[in-house]
């Protein structure tokens, strides 16, 4: 359909090749391995294809989104979309030929720099698949560096991310993962201290954590370091418009889900794995890294660098198997951050915090509902419901509200817990509508 060849083209080309027919070229596929047809729908012409897609898209329901859990409904400036859709970015490959790819390369360098600035780190890569896989890579690197096998994961880390880590390391059997219970919703120093010993390679700490709560990063880092363990921080990059950078409070690695920086919700992907670390660990970074250099005339330029870590050079001895990453999402994040700047990012963070707190106050005031945990939270919070949270979520759909994520699917103990968040996108009207709907439910 998208091939330009006319019958005349094909003939001329076959003649040039010296082949009698296309079949002759395909002959190396043994006849008994050829497909003899398959079940396939009729083709849709261009207008029908669009109409079909529109009809499908219309089967999804637009909702005022109070769900988070690592996927946030954040404002994406129109310029982000317009620029990332430029063919020069959209249709380029990984910048193997640096001289013909300076646009992509410089943008990656700016991306890495922005990530370092947010997380207070020295080095970052060109992106990974998403936050969860970035964490898996960081944990793997930390274990290699520390030469130890055990990783401590707090229960306050996203449960899906914990499953991803378990999946990643199940076959290899190492590093081993130990979950630290968080009955207060946060990683308690005592609980951690009890588990720290010379087998622990790294402690993972998410702040804001899965429940939206702020952890004592500095305290945890000090504890971990005292036992020779590395610290891997997980942080929402938007929160870092306001909160202290992990690199400052002592993290050795920092990862995050970057979707909220200029990327749409997309039902879960493509998202953006952010990965950063202190200088000492740069040669353990997985995936692409762009570095600054100069050309034959001394003119500044950028190249993919430290490729000796990578699979295409090192094969089975590579630091990771990552090849394609999420470059276009990273570009969106880079442009997004440049558009917002430190002041804009702070505004987004402050608005989200403010709205989440005002929402929490209203929801917590509905009879039967209360915040599950005490302590400062960022822009998400765990709401304890008098009934299964899934029922609450389903009931509010008819008000056009996605009330949050019911946590019972992750842990039966959380059956009545709804994870609720607000971003800069939520209006006062929507917040009030949510509270009112919950109020009606309580009656």
């Amino acid at each position, binding site marked *: *359909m998208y091939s*330009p060849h006319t019958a005349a083209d094909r003939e001329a080309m076959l003649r040039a090749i010296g082949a009698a027919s296309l079949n002759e070229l395909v002959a190396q596929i043994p006849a008994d391995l050829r497909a003899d047809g398959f079940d396939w729908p009729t083709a849709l012409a261009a207008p029908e294809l669009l109409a079909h897609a529109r009809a499908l898209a219309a089967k999804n329901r637009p909702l005022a989104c109070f769900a988070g859990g690592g996927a946030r409904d954040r404002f994406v400036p129109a310029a982000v979309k317009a620029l990332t859709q430029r063919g020069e970015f959209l249709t380029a490959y990984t910048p193997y030929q640096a001289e013909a790819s300076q646009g992509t390369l410089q943008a990656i360098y700016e991306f890495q720099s922005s990530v370092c600035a947010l997380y207070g780190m020295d080095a970052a890569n060109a992106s990974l698949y998403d936050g969860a896989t970035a964490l898996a890579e960081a944990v793997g690197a930390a274990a290699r560096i520390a030469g130890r096998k055990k990783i401590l994961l707090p229960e306050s880390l996203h449960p899906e991310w914990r499953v991803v880590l378990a*999946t990643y390391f199940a076959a290899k059997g190492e590093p081993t993962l130990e979950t630290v219970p968080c009955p207060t919703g946060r990683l308690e120093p005592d609980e951690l201290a009890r588990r720290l010993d010379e087998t622990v390679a790294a402690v993972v700490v998410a702040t804001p954590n899965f429940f939206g709560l702020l952890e004592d990063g500095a305290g945890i880092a000090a504890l971990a370091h005292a036992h020779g363990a590395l610290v891997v921080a997980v942080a929402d990059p938007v929160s*870092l418009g306001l909160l202290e950078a992990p690199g400052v409070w002592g993290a050795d690695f920092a990862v995050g889900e970057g979707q909220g920086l200029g990327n749409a919700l997309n039902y879960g992907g493509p998202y953006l794995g952010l990965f950063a670390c202190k200088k000492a660990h740069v040669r353990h970074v997985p995936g692409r890294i762009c570095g600054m250099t100069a050309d034959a005339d001394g003119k500044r330029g950028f190249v993919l660098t430290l490729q000796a870590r990578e699979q295409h050079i090192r094969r089975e001895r590579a630091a990771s198997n*990552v090849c394609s990453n999420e470059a*276009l999402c990273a570009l969106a994040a880079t442009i997004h951050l440049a558009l917002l700047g430190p*002041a804009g990012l702070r505004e987004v963070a402050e608005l989200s915090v403010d709205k989440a707190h005002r929402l929490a106050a209203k929801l917590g005031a509905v009879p039967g509902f209360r915040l599950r945990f005490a302590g400062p939270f960022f822009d998400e919070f765990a709401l304890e419901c008098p009934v299964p949270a899934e029922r609450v979520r389903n009931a509010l759909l008819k008000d056009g509200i996605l009330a949050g994520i019911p946590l019972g699917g992750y842990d039966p103990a959380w059956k009545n817990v709804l994870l609720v968040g607000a971003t800069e996108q939520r209006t006062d009207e929507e917040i009030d509508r949510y509270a009112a709907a919950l109020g009606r439910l309580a009656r």
Partner: protein
Amino acid sequence: MNLLEKLSIEKSVPGRRGVRFAQPAQPAAAWLPETALRKTPPRLPEMSEFDVVRHYTRLSRLNYCLDTHLYPLGSCTMKYNPRANEEIAALDGFAATHPGAPDAAAQGTLEVLWRLERMLCALTGLAAFTLQPAAGAHGEFTGILIAAAYHRSRRDRRRTEILVADSSHGTNPASAVLGGFAVKTVASRPDGRLDLDALKTALGPQTAMVMLTVPNTLGLFERQIREIADAAHAAGALLYMDGANFNALMGLAKPADFGVDILHLNLHKSFSTPHGGGGPGSGPVGVTAALEKFLPVPRVAEKNGRFTLRTKIRGSIGRMRSWAGNVGVALKAYAYLRAHDAATLRSIAENAILNANYVRAQLRDLFPPAVDEPCLHECVLRTEPEKLNGIKTLDVAKRLLDAGFYAPTIYFPLIVHEALMVEPTETESKETLDAFVAALRAIHAEALADPDRVRAAPHELPVRRLDELAAARNPNVAW
């Protein structure tokens, strides 16, 4: 300093603003403890919106891309990225749906994922697919974890080794190691195919899986694939097919018929989703019925036209990432596939094969093919420095940039000396290929007449040859 374009941070002016937001009712200090707040704002650029638009527009223009230049990158299938796919994936209904939305609110997306899975099954003959892997390498890793789970389920703990071809993509061995396996490399024969005898020798009770790329990275079909499959199965091992090169087989052959147990496809290659300068991709993994239960969650199920996302499946290896996968990419692939009927799908493969052979035939006298027989979707040629005043493949590649073509993949597969791996794809016209052939022939002539000019290439690009060694020696990776 001499530079192409300042960095965004170098264009930053304190206090300058781009996009603004409303003011919060209360400042953060009202809600958060002082100690949690950062002391210094992150060092991000402060620019006007216009500055940002101009900056990235100008940056973009320093790139070659498919929309402006032929991009004959072997193994990458840089085919036209239809704009209809972009329009469809960006439809609000799809793009604005939260992955935590209940099934009832996401029926459209779930239906697309389900239909796409069925279509991939139809194309490959396999029983089931997961759309969760975010790229080809991620798919490989998924497949390796499935293999491990399979052997574990059979309480067969001896299977610690994975066999890969010496022509394989680097991600194959790297993924195997990530899964905790030892890697053993099996040599190819002079005709570019895996050496079946060597494979049989290598196979044993320790073999968990054989990983094979079909067509292989020389653009050749593994004619003995059935024998390979039988040998692997006889030894109790699985056969994995790296299907990144599926463009050559689309509609022509079904890997399930080859005896393949697990395979990954690259939607961002075969199915026309754009590469975006390095991603996002999508690397769905397909398996036989026997292995279906090991697929990662979530999976989409259908009943009476209603679609549900299943997150708990006994036997599943778990989750390869958060949520359901690179759904936006899957949407584009779905749109692409729906634009074709069975016959045109087959013509995609045929035209891709035609184009590769056309280039091969026109260049084989100057750049000898690694294996001199008809190829499938790509051809691997060689530069012969000894006949070309020492001009190497790298020099030829850089000089091609001057001629207005992106360079082929070079120095891969590793088993071919001075390799130039050309994959034109079916969306390039004869005229473009003619121009490309003419450019390579001209470079060959220039290498004989004026080798220094070739060695110093590129000359016409925004920068001259960049010093990669210096970059690696003293890494500067952030401002």
